[in-house]
């Protein structure tokens, strides 16, 4: 009996067929091929332009595009809807999806399934790019998403995941969407080697997404940088945050984040490198802050944040805060503005460094005072404040500032 069952299983496996779609092939539309296919079949699509309206993949299939066939949504339809487990969708070009704020049509939408792989596709001018709702163990890999949204409400997110688990998002390039990568209720996922730039709102935006890792991504020149909120167990390693300019624009915005690690990242030329509000038990180590307006703005609502062994170069202000309460520690960082000395040659300065200048406190209270920045008056005030701190929080200081920058 067992042998019979086994042979039956083998038999069905062996039946996996290859179906071809193209002008000179047996199927002219992909939809027709899907209807004639069985679970486990492979569909190979030749190059050409296909107007499939809404292509629904409701069987576990492998779809391979040969020489990037184009699927056109004619500005009306959701181009591909995946409603079956174990689908591989690879090598297509999708363009012109419909635009609707009620149904949120996407280039590719994954509905309540698991083990789907979307790889090597090009998405051009789609409302949402790749949208996963309630997916598990899906892989989104090496896709390139491009949109040219003008207003935030007229465009969707690049890679949008809602209520997912164990996702892998790797090597994608996303630009011109509302948020490059958007996560809500996504857990245990890995986001790596993506390049998110020129998006209207955030390069990366996530909320309520616990225990995710973000590794080696680049976020550049997005409308408001990167925002991460209401999450615990975030690991951000080796990412680059660059050129996020504007008053409400942050390299990295941390709001209500706890138990997280921010390691080996680079923050370059942002108005604010990291902005922290209500962050607790976060550990920042070996990051580089270079040429930012403010390297770190840490609000008094943060606690147990440790900032250690980071490099600070050429920032206009190293640290800014809004109160005198400090429950965080800054230790063993390299600050290029440090003017102390090292008599005992232990490579750390003998006098503590106070990264908050009086003027940064003044600006926090009264932004137009920026016009007085670098005037002699202000330098004098800063110097006196360094000797006798009155306005700046007395215990926000680095007791062991490094004399030489760390090599990161």
């Amino acid at each position: 009996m067992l042998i019979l069952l086994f042979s039956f299983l083998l038999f069905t496996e062996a039946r996996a067929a290859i179906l071809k779609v193209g002008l000179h092939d047996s199927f002219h539309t992909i939809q027709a091929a899907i209807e004639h296919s069985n679970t486990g079949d492979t569909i190979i699509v030749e190059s050409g332009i296909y107007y499939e309206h809404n292509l629904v993949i409701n069987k576990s299939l492998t779809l391979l595009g040969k020489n990037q066939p184009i699927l056109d949504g004619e500005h009306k339809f959701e181009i591909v809807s995946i409603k079956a487990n174990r689908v591989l969708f690879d090598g297509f070009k999708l363009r012109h999806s419909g635009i609707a704020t009620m149904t949120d049509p996407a280039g590719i939408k994954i509905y309540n399934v698991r083990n789907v792989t979307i790889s090597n596709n090009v998405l051009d001018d789609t409302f949402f790019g790749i949208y996963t709702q309630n997916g598990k163990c899906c892989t989104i890999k090496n896709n390139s998403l491009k949109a040219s949204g003008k207003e935030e409400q007229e465009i969707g997110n690049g890679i949008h995941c809602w209520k997912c688990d164990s996702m892998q998002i790797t090597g994608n390039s996303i630009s011109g969407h509302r948020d490059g990568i958007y996560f809500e209720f996504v857990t245990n996922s890995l986001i790596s080697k993506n390049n998110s730039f020129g998006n209207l709102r955030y390069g990366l935006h996530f909320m309520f997404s616990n225990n995710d890792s973000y590794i080696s991504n680049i976020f550049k020149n997005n409308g408001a940088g990167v925002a991460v909120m209401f999450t615990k167990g975030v690991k951000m390693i080796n990412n680059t945050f660059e050129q996020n300019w504007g008053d409400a624009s942050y390299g990295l915005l941390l709001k209500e984040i706890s138990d997280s690690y921010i390691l080996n990242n680079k923050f370059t030329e942002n108005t604010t490198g990291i902005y922290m509000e209500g962050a607790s038990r976060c550990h920042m180590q070996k990051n580089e802050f270079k040429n930012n307006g403010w390297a770190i703005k840490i609000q008094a609502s943060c606690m147990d944040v440790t900032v250690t062994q980071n490099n600070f170069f050429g920032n206009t202000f190293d640290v800014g805060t809004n109160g005198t309460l400090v429950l965080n520690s800054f230790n063993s960082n390299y600050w290029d503005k440090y003017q102390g000395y090292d008599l005992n040659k232990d490579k750390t300065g003998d006098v503590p460094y106070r990264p908050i200048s009086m003027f940064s406190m003044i600006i926090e209270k009264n932004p137009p005072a920026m016009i007085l920045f670098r005037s002699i008056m202000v330098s004098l005030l800063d110097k006196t404040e360094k000797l006798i701190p009155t306005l700046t929080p007395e215990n926000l200081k680095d007791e062991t500032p490094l004399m030489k920058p760390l090599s990161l």
Partner: protein
Amino acid sequence: MNKVIKYVIIDILRNKIVVAYTIFLFIISFSVFSLEDNTAKGLLSLLNLILFIVPLVSIIFSTIYIYNSSEFIELLLSQPLKRKQIWLSLFSGLSVSMAFAYLIGTGIPLLIFEPSELGIIMVIIGCLLSIIFVAIAMLAAVSTRDKAKGIGVAILLWLYFALIFDGLVLFLLFQFEDYPLEKVMMLISAFNPIDLSRILILMQLDVSALMGYTGAVFKDFFGTGIGFIVALLTLLLWVYIPLLLSLRKFKRKDL
């Protein structure tokens, strides 16, 4: 007139103070760049030099020079020369030598270490500040006959522009905290050449921080070509108006 300018310049050079000033600027500028490991920090130190030392030397030297050459001025007046010509020649001689000293002393190291837009702007602004404070010095010197008093006025004027003005602005900012002051601040900055120069340099130096909301307001004005030209014209007005006032006074002065 050219002859008088030539004589004034030769006289200033013979004086050796300007030569010393040039060497002083040169040594400081060079050491500032070679001591710091990155040029950005050197530029910041240099910024203080431009905003602090250059106006100070310019105003004090010019005031003293005018007082010391009172006999020479009287001699010239006995010649068939217009008062306007004499006064303008004095101004030209002084400003050429001060600006030249700055150009050699700071301009050369600056352009060697920072051959960018920022470097060029700093050179132009330094020269303008030198000339502005020569003009202000001449106004101070012509206002009173007493040398000690004149120098005192000059120092006070410098103190006002370099320090007190900013203090007043800060005070105003906190008094009128509740009002939108960004645009007003831009207008107020036009009343102080040192502030205006500083802001122009700041636009190049602290781009990231200035992209904040308030900064963006300033950046939108001063960062654009038109704003930059308006600011430069305002600086030129700072040469023209004190010079004009001093000229008027000089014409009517009973020597």
